[in-house]
C-alpha cells in the first residue's frame, strides 16, 4: 500500500462515500429486495398453476366405494370432496379418503419389484420380469397356494376364483365384509351375499363397532342423527368411544367379554321364548344349542362382563321387541364373536328382513359366485403350517389380516412365501416376500362393490385421472400375469378396460337395477339406458349402479350353528384389579392402511387420534402409577415390551390400558426407514383371530 496515503485520508474518503451511498438508491433497494427474497425463498414450494377442472370418480380405499369429486390442476387432483347426493355416501368422505390424492406420492411407495429375505434383514429390487420369472418357479414348486382377496365381488375376484379353479394347487380365499362371513359359515353356504340395512333398523346393538367412526360409510353418523329419536343404538364397550358417546345407550363391559355377552343375550332370547317359530325352525341343531347356551345365564355372564344381569336381560328383550333390529361387531372382533353375534341376528329373525341383514342377489355379469365359492376356502379353516404361498391383493387398501394369522398358516421355518401386490412397502419379517408394485387410486380403471352397510348391493368404477407409473400393475393385469406363470388361460383377458367393459355390458344386458349419474345428479333405471356405453360412461364419470331390492328368500336358509359356536373358548374371568392392555378400534377408516403424511394433523399434531405410539389411561390408573399425561411408559406383557406415550382419558375404563388397533404408517419418511411399532402385538390373539385383553405391567420411563 502506498505509504503516502495516511489513515486519516482514507477516513475522509470513506466518510464521503458513506454519505454518498446513503443518498443513493443502493441501500434502500437492497433492503427492499432482501425482504422480498424472504417472501419467495426458493425452498418454499410454489403451487403449480394451470387449468382448473372438476372430475368425479369413486374412492377405492375401502368397500364403502364413496363417490368423490376431485378438483384438478391439469390432470392432477389437488383436493377431494364427496359427490353430492351420491347413493353410497351422500356426499361424505372419511379422513383418509380426503387425502387419497397424496398416496400416489407417498414416501413408502414401491416403484420397483422388491424381494424381502426372511426377517426382512435385507431387501433387493428387481425388474417385474425377473420377479415373475422367480415367481413362476416358486408357484410351480409349491403344493398349496392361497390367493387372498379382501375385496371380493370385484371383476378381478371372479378371475382369481377362476384361476384357483383351473390350477390344482391354488385355492381362493375371499374375505367378505366382517360379520357377513359368519353368515356364510353358519349357513354353510359360501356364496351368500348380504348387507346390513342399518338405515331401516329400529334398534341397533353394537358390540364395540365404531359405527360413527369408519365402520360403514362416512355418512352413517349423519344418517343416524337425521333419524334422531326414531332409531335406537345400544353400544356395548369398555370405553365411552365417539360412537358410545353419541349412542342412545352405552353399556359398560369389561374388555374382551363381547362373546360372553352375546351368548347370554342368546340365552335370554331362548329362555324367555323371544324367538320366532320360523327362526327356531331355521336352526337345525336348535336343541343342542339350547343345551349349550344353558350355561350362559345373565347371572354368570354378569360376573365376566361387569354388566348387571338386569341390563343383559333388558338388552336381549330390546333386540327381540324393537324389530327390525340388527346386531353388529367391530372389524377387529374375532370369528367366535362374529359368529355369536350373527346367531343373535338369526334368533331375532333379522336375517333376510328389511332393517336387518338383507340378502343380496348376485351382481350380474360375474362368473357365478356359487361357482367361485366351490374353490373358495376360509383362511381360518386352513390347517396351520399348510400353506406354501400366500398371494395377497393389497392393491386397493392394504391388508387387514393379522400377520400372526398368516404366520400360523404358512409352512414353518420361514419357508413360506408371500407374494403381495401392493403400492407400498409392507414388510412381513416371517416369510420370504415379493412385493409387486401396484397402481394406487387415480392411476387405474377398476371396479368396486357397494358398501356393506346398505340394503342393496352396488357397483362403481374408479377412473384413471393420472398415468400409472412404469412397472406398476393393477389387479386385473396382475391376475393375468399370475395365470401366465401358472400357464392357465382365463375366460376374459386383455386390457383392464376391455375386461371391465365386458362386465358392464352384461350388467346392462340384465336390465336390472338403477344407475346414479353425476352429470345430472339423478338416478334412473338401467332399462332407460339405450346402450351399454351409456351405462359405462355414467359409471366412469363417477356414478354408481344399485341393485333392485330383490334378495334371496331367507326362508330357504337353514343354519347349523353348533359346529362354529361350540368350540368357542370360554372367556376367562380376569379379576378386575389386574392391569390389562387391550386394543381398541380408534377409527377403522384407515385401519392398517398406509395414509397420507398429512394425517399427522389428527394424530401427531393435535392428539385427536390415538397414534401407534400412544396409549389411553384412565387418570385414576395413571395416578396410581405416578404417570402424568404425555409421559413415556413401558408396557411389558409376555409378548414383549414397548414404549408408548400415556394419554390420560377419563372415558376409558380404569385398570385397562387401551392401545390403537389401527396403527397406520403416516409420516414423512419411508416405511423401510421407520418400521413403526405395532402396539397390538403386545396382546395375545384368540383362536378366533381377535386380540384379547392381556395382563400387563406399566412403568414410567425417564428419558
Amino acid at each position, binding site marked *: 500500500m502506498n505509504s503516502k496515503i495516511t489513515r486519516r485520508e482514507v477516513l475522509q474518503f470513506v466518510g464521503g462515500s458513506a454519505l454518498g451511498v446513503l443518498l443513493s438508491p443502493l441501500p434502500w433497494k437492497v433492503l427492499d429486495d432482501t425482504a422480498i427474497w424472504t*417472501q419467495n*425463498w426458493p425452498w*418454499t*414450494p410454489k*403451487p*403449480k398453476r394451470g387449468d382448473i377442472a372438476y372430475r368425479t370418480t369413486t374412492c377405492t380405499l375401502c368397500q364403502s366405494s364413496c363417490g368423490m369429486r376431485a378438483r384438478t390442476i391439469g390432470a*392432477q387432483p*389437488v*383436493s*377431494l*370432496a*364427496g359427490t353430492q347426493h351420491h347413493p353410497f355416501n351422500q356426499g*361424505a*368422505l*372419511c*379422513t383418509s379418503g*380426503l*387425502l387419497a*390424492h*397424496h398416496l*400416489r*406420492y407417498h*414416501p413408502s411407495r414401491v416403484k420397483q419389484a422388491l424381494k424381502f429375505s426372511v426377517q426382512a434383514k435385507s431387501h433387493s429390487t428387481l425388474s417385474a420380469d425377473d420377479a415373475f420369472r422367480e415367481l413362476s418357479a416358486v408357484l410351480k414348486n409349491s403344493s398349496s397356494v392361497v390367493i387372498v382377496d379382501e375385496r371380493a365381488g370385484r371383476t378381478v375376484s371372479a378371475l382369481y376364483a377362476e384361476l384357483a379353479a383351473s390350477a390344482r394347487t391354488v385355492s381362493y380365499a375371499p374375505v367378505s365384509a366382517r360379520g357377513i362371513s359368519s353368515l356364510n359359515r353358519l349357513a354353510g353356504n359360501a356364496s351368500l351375499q348380504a348387507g346390513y340395512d342399518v338405515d331401516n333398523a329400529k334398534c341397533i346393538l353394537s358390540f364395540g363397532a365404531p359405527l*360413527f*367412526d369408519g365402520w360403514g360409510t*362416512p355418512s352413517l*353418523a*349423519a344418517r343416524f*342423527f337425521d333419524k334422531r329419536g326414531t332409531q335406537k343404538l345400544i353400544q356395548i364397550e369398555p370405553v*365411552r368411544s*365417539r360412537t358410545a358417546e353419541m349412542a342412545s345407550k352405552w353399556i*359398560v363391559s369389561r374388555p374382551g367379554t363381547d362373546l360372553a355377552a352375546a351368548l347370554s343375550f342368546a340365552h335370554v332370547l331362548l329362555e324367555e321364548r323371544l324367538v320366532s317359530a320360523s327362526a327356531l325352525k331355521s336352526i337345525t341343531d336348535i336343541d343342542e344349542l339350547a343345551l349349550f347356551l344353558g350355561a350362559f345365564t345373565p347371572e354368570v355372564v354378569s360376573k365376566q362382563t361387569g354388566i348387571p344381569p338386569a341390563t343383559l336381560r333388558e338388552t336381549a328383550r330390546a333386540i327381540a321387541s324393537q324389530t327390525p333390529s340388527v346386531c353388529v361387531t367391530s372389524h377387529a372382533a374375532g370369528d367366535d364373536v362374529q359368529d355369536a353375534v350373527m346367531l343373535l341376528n338369526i334368533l331375532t329373525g333379522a336375517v333376510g328382513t328389511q332393517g336387518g341383514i338383507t340378502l343380496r342377489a348376485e351382481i350380474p355379469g360375474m362368473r357365478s359366485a356359487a361357482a367361485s365359492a366351490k374353490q373358495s376356502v376360509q383362511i381360518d379353516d386352513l390347517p396351520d403350517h399348510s400353506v406354501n404361498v400366500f398371494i395377497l391383493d393389497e392393491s386397493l387398501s392394504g391388508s387387514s389380516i393379522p400377520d400372526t394369522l398368516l404366520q400360523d398358516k404358512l409352512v414353518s421355518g420361514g419357508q413360506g412365501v408371500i407374494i403381495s401386490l401392493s403400492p407400498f412397502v409392507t414388510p412381513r419379517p416371517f416369510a420370504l416376500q415379493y412385493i409387486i408394485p401396484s397402481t394406487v387410486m387415480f392411476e387405474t380403471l377398476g371396479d368396486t362393490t357397494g358398501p356393506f352397510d346398505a340394503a342393496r348391493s352396488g357397483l362403481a368404477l374408479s377412473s384413471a385421472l393420472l398415468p400409472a407409473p412404469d412397472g406398476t400393475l393393477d389387479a386385473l393385469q396382475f391376475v393375468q400375469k399370475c395365470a401366465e406363470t401358472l400357464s392357465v388361460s382365463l375366460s376374459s383377458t386383455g386390457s383392464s378396460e376391455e375386461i371391465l367393459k365386458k362386465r358392464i355390458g352384461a350388467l346392462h344386458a340384465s336390465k336390472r337395477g338403477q344407475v346414479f349419474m353425476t352429470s345430472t345428479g339423478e338416478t334412473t333405471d338401467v332399462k332407460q339406458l339405450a346402450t351399454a356405453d351409456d351405462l359405462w360412461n355414467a359409471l366412469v364419470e363417477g356414478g354408481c349402479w344399485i341393485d333392485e331390492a330383490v334378495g334371496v328368500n331367507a326362508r330357504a336358509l337353514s343354519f347349523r350353528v353348533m359346529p362354529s359356536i361350540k368350540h368357542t373358548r370360554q372367556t376367562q374371568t380376569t379379576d378386575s384389579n389386574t392391569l390389562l392392555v387391550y386394543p381398541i378400534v380408534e*377409527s377403522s*377408516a384407515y385401519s392398517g392402511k398406509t395414509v*397420507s*403424511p*398429512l*394425517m*399427522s*394433523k*389428527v394424530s*401427531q*399434531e*393435535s*392428539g*385427536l387420534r390415538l397414534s401407534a405410539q400412544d396409549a389411553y389411561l*384412565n*387418570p*385414576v390408573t395413571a395416578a396410581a402409577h405416578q404417570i*402424568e*399425561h404425555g409421559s413415556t411408559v413401558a408396557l411389558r406383557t409376555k409378548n414383549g415390551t414397548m414404549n408408548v406415550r400415556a*394419554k*390420560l382419558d*377419563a*372415558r*376409558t*375404563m*380404569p385398570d385397562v390400558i387401551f392401545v390403537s388397533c389401527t396403527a397406520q404408517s403416516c*409420516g*414423512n419418511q419411508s416405511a423401510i426407514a421407520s418400521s413403526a411399532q405395532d402396539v397390538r402385538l403386545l396382546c395375545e390373539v384368540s383362536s378366533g383371530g381377535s386380540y384379547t385383553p392381556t395382563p400387563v405391567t406399566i412403568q414410567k420411563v425417564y428419558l
Partner: protein
Amino acid sequence: METTQKSPRYGMVIDVDRCTGCGNCMVACAVENNVPPAQAKVTERTGMTWMRVSKLDNGLPFPENRSVYLPVSCQQCDHHTPCQSVCPQNAVEYDIESGIVAQIPVRCFGCRYCMTACPYHARYYNWFDPEWADGIERTLNPDVSARMRGVVEKCNFCHGRLQAARAKAAADGRKTESESDYTTACAECCPTQAIRFGNLADPKSEVSILSKSPSAFRLLEDLGTEPKVYFRSEQEWVHTIVKKTSSSELKEHSNG
C-alpha cells in the same frame, strides 16, 4: 342470488352434538390452505392446525365422564379483535368487506405478539420450513400461497375460495360474490354437516338464524371479542362447562 346491500359478515355455526371428532375438517383445511405435514420433531404444541378439534369434557370420572368435540379455528373476532390491534406492522387486518380477520404472512416478521394476544390459541407459527414428501407438492392448491418459516398464519375462512367467488361474480358482471359460490373447506367436508358457514349479516341466512337460537354459544363471550364462530349444543352440561373458564376450573393435565 345477490347478498343483502350491506357488506357480508361471514361466520360459522358448529353443532357440537353432531361432531363425531373425525378430524375431516382438520385435514380438509390443511389440503385447501397448503399447510404442510408435521416433521419428526413436531408435537401437539408446535403443530400447524388452522382448524383444531379439541375435546371438552365434564370433568367427571369414568363412567360418568361425558365429552364433546369442539372444532376450533380462528374465531374471527368482530370487535376489539385482540390480534389485529397488537400487530406492529399491519400484517393482521379486519376485512371490512367480509368480516374476516385477515392474516397476511408475507407482511408478518414473526414477533408472535398476536399469538400472545389470541385467547383462542388459533394462531400458529411456522417453527419449521414447510416440507412436503417428494411429489406431494404437486397437489398444492394454486389459490393459496405456501408460507415460509418464521411467520404466523391462521384460518382466513378459505380466502382463496372467497377470491374465486369474487372473480366469478366479476365475470358474471355482479358486484358482490354470491354466497352459494363460497363455503369453507371444513364446512364442505364435514360428514355430518355439523359445520354451517354463511353470512351473519343476512338475517334470513341459515347461520344467522342458528346463531340466535338459545342453544347457541360462543367461546369466552365475556371478553367481548364478539367471535363470528358460534357453537350449538342441546346438552345442558356443555353450556355450564363452557361458561366456566379453565382458570376457575383447576386442570393440571389435559384429557387426551
